[in-house]
């Protein structure tokens, strides 16, 4: 008989042939050195692939960075943003808890309340002028403004003692705790935050208080305006450039490895 072709031998090894043909090929292989060598070559192809498959391949560092950035962007777009200007005095833990409780009470209208918080925070930067006393006043006004909007939105307040049992970590992590929840139309909501920052921007950039992460991303010698926000409960910044009539906005992740998450041209 003529030699079977290599595909037929491969099919035979994989058990794909009809019984009668399989028996015929098996008979041939038993008596043909050439074809039985081909059969063992095919088995060797398989074992070579198996051995290669067991080797560890490390993802190159540039790919790791690229994909981590993609995952972080996805994460930023689906979750939360809370704003405060970088010039604002640091609020005590207690003050932050109170503010969070107020926003939590707003329930379903969290997004609106948080946007108010962004706006108020930026207003504070403008009116504060770096003086501690003015800033404290602005902070108090910010608080009552939030309370008002929360009260109107929910009609009633959740008893504070119930909420105070929650740990900071929990309140930071959950949308319902009052951070601006970015729902299905995530991009639009994030850009509305940028819009809000833009409309309340300050006229000058305070280098002393510019977040380190902004300098890490843009360099020290840079003259945009930057505002602290929280992304997923962790520090971030919105950056506008140029300061007076911004054409570009960025969302920056702060922390250990600062990086740009989003860049938007405002003139589009």
């Amino acid at each position: 008989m003529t030699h079977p072709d290599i595909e037929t031998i491969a099919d035979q090894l994989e058990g794909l042939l009809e019984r009668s043909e399989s028996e015929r090929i098996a008979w041939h292989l038993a008596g043909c050195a050439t074809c039985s060598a081909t059969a063992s070559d095919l088995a060797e192809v398989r074992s070579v692939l198996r051995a290669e498959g067991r080797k560890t391949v490390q993802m190159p560092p540039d790919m790791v960075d690229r994909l981590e950035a993609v995952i972080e962007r996805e994460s930023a777009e689906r979750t939360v943003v809370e704003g405060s200007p970088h010039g604002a005095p640091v609020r005590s833990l207690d003050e932050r808890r109170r503010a969070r409780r107020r926003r939590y009470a707003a329930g379903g209208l969290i997004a609106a309340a948080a946007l108010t918080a962004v706006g108020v925070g930026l207003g504070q930067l403008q009116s504060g002028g770096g003086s501690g006393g003015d800033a404290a006043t602005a902070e108090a006004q910010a608080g009552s403004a939030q309370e008002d909007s929360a009260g109107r939105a929910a009609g009633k307040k959740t008893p504070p003692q119930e909420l105070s049992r929650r740990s900071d970590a929990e309140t930071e992590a959950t949308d319902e705790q009052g951070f601006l929840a970015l729902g299905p139309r995530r991009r639009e909501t994030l850009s509305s935050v940028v819009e809000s920052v833009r409309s309340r921007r300050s006229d000058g950039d305070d280098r002393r208080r510019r977040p380190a992460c902004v300098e890490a991303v843009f360099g020290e010698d840079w003259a945009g305006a930057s505002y602290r926000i929280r992304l997923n409960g962790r520090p971030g910044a919105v950056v506008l450039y140029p300061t007076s009539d911004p054409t570009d906005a960025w969302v920056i992740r702060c922390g250990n490895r600062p990086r740009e998450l989003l860049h938007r041209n405002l003139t589009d």
Partner: protein
Amino acid sequence: MTDDDLSDETLLSRHVAGDPDAFGVLFARHRDRLWAIALRTLGNREDAADALQDAMISAFRRAEGFRGGSAVTTWLHRIVVNACLDHVRRAKVRSADPLPEDPERVTALAAQTQPDPVDQLTDRGAVLAALRTLPEDQRAALVLVDMEGYSVAEAAQMLDCAPGTIKSRCARGRARLHPHLADLRNQAEPARVEPLSAPHEPMGGDGS
């Protein structure tokens, strides 16, 4: 308990529940294997990178669709290998566009296929080069069954086809790799780091 101690299933369900870090932990845990699958299925870094990016976005957004019944890794590998096949199909559609012989495009493609320095160092090129000669369906079947060690039944589920189809693709793929066996044998030797010069070319200009 740190994130590193959590099971894949727990991390995935935390991700679905809104935990902003869970998916990143899952990615860090499995990224090398995902990269290997994409690289072997597509044969070069650029395509593997693009396909893997699509796959990770898809996995991130569609995590609710994970129903258990298989390992999270199987679910991830399925997404990656299908993203690779989509990538090949889209590239074919693009190459069917007019001006395939655009000289600039050809130059750009040639630049992209320069051997990867990492591949050279680990002598990994031969298997990738041999796999590249196969149709993508055969390549994907061989990557899953022969290289990753999935059963025929698992690979059939992952690629959404009959087990017989997987067997046939594997058999045909191995037959097509047969002419490359000599190259592949070298590959099968234990991994060794070679000097940067090619071993067949003696150094020192002893050319006579």
